[in-house]
């Protein structure tokens, strides 16, 4: 545990080393979030819109858009680039020899980058735009449930990304497959359009896939649009998907590592 925390600290420091990059990242988030807020504000108007018999106020929509933009990296599978880059540079060969092990090194790095990205890039945009345009904050119980779902969602997305990425040890380059996953995830997770606006058949598909746990689930909880029974269901489905994905990720690691070739080794 101590070595994991040390790894997290090192990775976080590395992510923060280039401050200018962090500022640019924050500006990028601000630009994307601002454009999205203006788009959705023009669609729902000041009075909001109805969904599933309920009501979504303008402030709810702004909050949804800001949080979805803040969490955007969940649908981008950055672990695929990390692993492919390490394989291409030959760094993976060194990583497997280091004490924490390749999976732990990669996981710690991804977690650190996700947290640093949230704090340094997404949070400033969230605070600035939230202060100007309004932001809905629920009670502490819903905040805690939503945060737990985000953590679970990050693990889920990282495991999916890991399964795509680790095949690079056999196939040399799997970055291209990532784009298809990014597209499907962005659509069916609620990152681009909240699932409440989907036609029924598409919504059924979205809810059958794991990706709705990345955006739709935590944001429904945050906005108070999911009751506690539904929140329990979200956690149960998340646990189920993690139970499926962990063995698959482990199997993918063993399958790929068996083919790993270290030149000159």
């Amino acid at each position, binding site marked *: 545990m101590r070595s994991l925390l040390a790894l997290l600290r090192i990775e976080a420091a590395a992510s923060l080393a280039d401050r200018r990059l962090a500022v640019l990242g924050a500006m990028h988030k601000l630009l994307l979030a601002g454009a999205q807020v203006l788009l959705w504000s023009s669609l729902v108007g000041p009075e909001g819109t109805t969904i599933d018999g309920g009501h979504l106020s303008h402030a709810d929509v702004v909050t949804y858009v800001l949080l979805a933009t803040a969490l955007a990296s969940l649908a981008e599978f950055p672990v695929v680039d990390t692993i492919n880059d390490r394989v291409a540079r030959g760094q993976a060969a060194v990583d497997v020899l280091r004490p924490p092990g390749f999976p732990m090194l990669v996981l710690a790095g991804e977690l650190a980058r996700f947290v640093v990205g949230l704090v340094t890039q997404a949070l400033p945009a969230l605070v600035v735009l939230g202060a100007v345009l309004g932001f809905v904050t629920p009670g502490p119980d819903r905040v805690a449930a939503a945060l737990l779902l985000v953590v679970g969602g990050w693990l889920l997305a990282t495991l999916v990304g890991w399964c795509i990425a680790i095949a690079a040890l056999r196939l040399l380059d799997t970055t291209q497959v990532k784009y298809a996953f990014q597209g499907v995830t962005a659509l069916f997770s609620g990152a681009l359009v909240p699932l409440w*606006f989907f*036609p029924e058949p*598409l919504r059924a598909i979205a809810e059958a896939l794991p990706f709705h746990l990345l955006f739709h689930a935590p944001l429904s909880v945050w906005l108070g649009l999911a009751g506690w029974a539904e929140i329990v269901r979200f956690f149960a489905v998340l646990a189920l998907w993690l139970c499926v994905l962990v063995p698959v990720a482990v199997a993918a690691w063993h399958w790929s590592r068996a083919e790993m070739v270290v030149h000159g080794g």
Partner: protein
Amino acid sequence: MGGLRFLLAQTGLALQARMHDRFNFVIEQVSNVVFYLCATVALAIIVMRFGRIGGFGLAEMMLVYGLNLVSYFIAGTYLWGVARTLEGSIRSGAFDLVLLKPVGPLVFLMARSFEPSMPVKAAGAFALCLYALTLHDIGASPATSIWLLATIVGGTLIQGGIMLAFSSIGFWVSGSRDLVELLIYGVRRTVDVPISIYPAPVQLVLTVVVPYAFVNYYPVLGLAGSTESAGMAALAASALAVGLPCAAAGSALWRLGLRRYRAAGG
């Protein structure tokens, strides 16, 4: 002429190199199709749910999105790589070697930056535009074909001019790669939707300062009303009218930066 021959020869070589791993190339194209198909479906869901976005229906929205993509992909085929790598090659000193080549530095960098997947994506975006036109009331006609061609050529000149202008920042600002990416990628995405949804100052910036609005919004606005008035007809042709000076401005800024460049130790 020699520059063009060099560019084409290098393009052929880059294509050969990329096609060495055909499976990967095909997978990449399939992935790209899936990615943009999902984005288009998302757009269709929004229009189906809310009727219109900024006064535009489904056909116009698909045109707005498709025109932005097709012109970006065509311009990016040679210039996106230049925008991403120029600052790095200046910082590492590799740009000095580029200046020693027997072809112009821009042509050399463009040839080196050729991205084979961009034309494939452009073809997909073009198909989306054609599909959108079949959905549109105005339908397909010789006039519509000329409008589409002029808009794509004009849009490509605008996108190319902006890419070149933003790339040139690298001559003045060290470590500007991420700023350039933000300016090109982030700002361009704001015109994935009609600019009429934005407040007036933002519309003004996207019309006058960084004229992305002429890539899609004004031409599509003009398309529907081009038979009604001369003003609308002018809007329909606006991409080409703005594209030429925009490309010239981008090129001028590049030359200005190049003249200002001093090699390390020189």
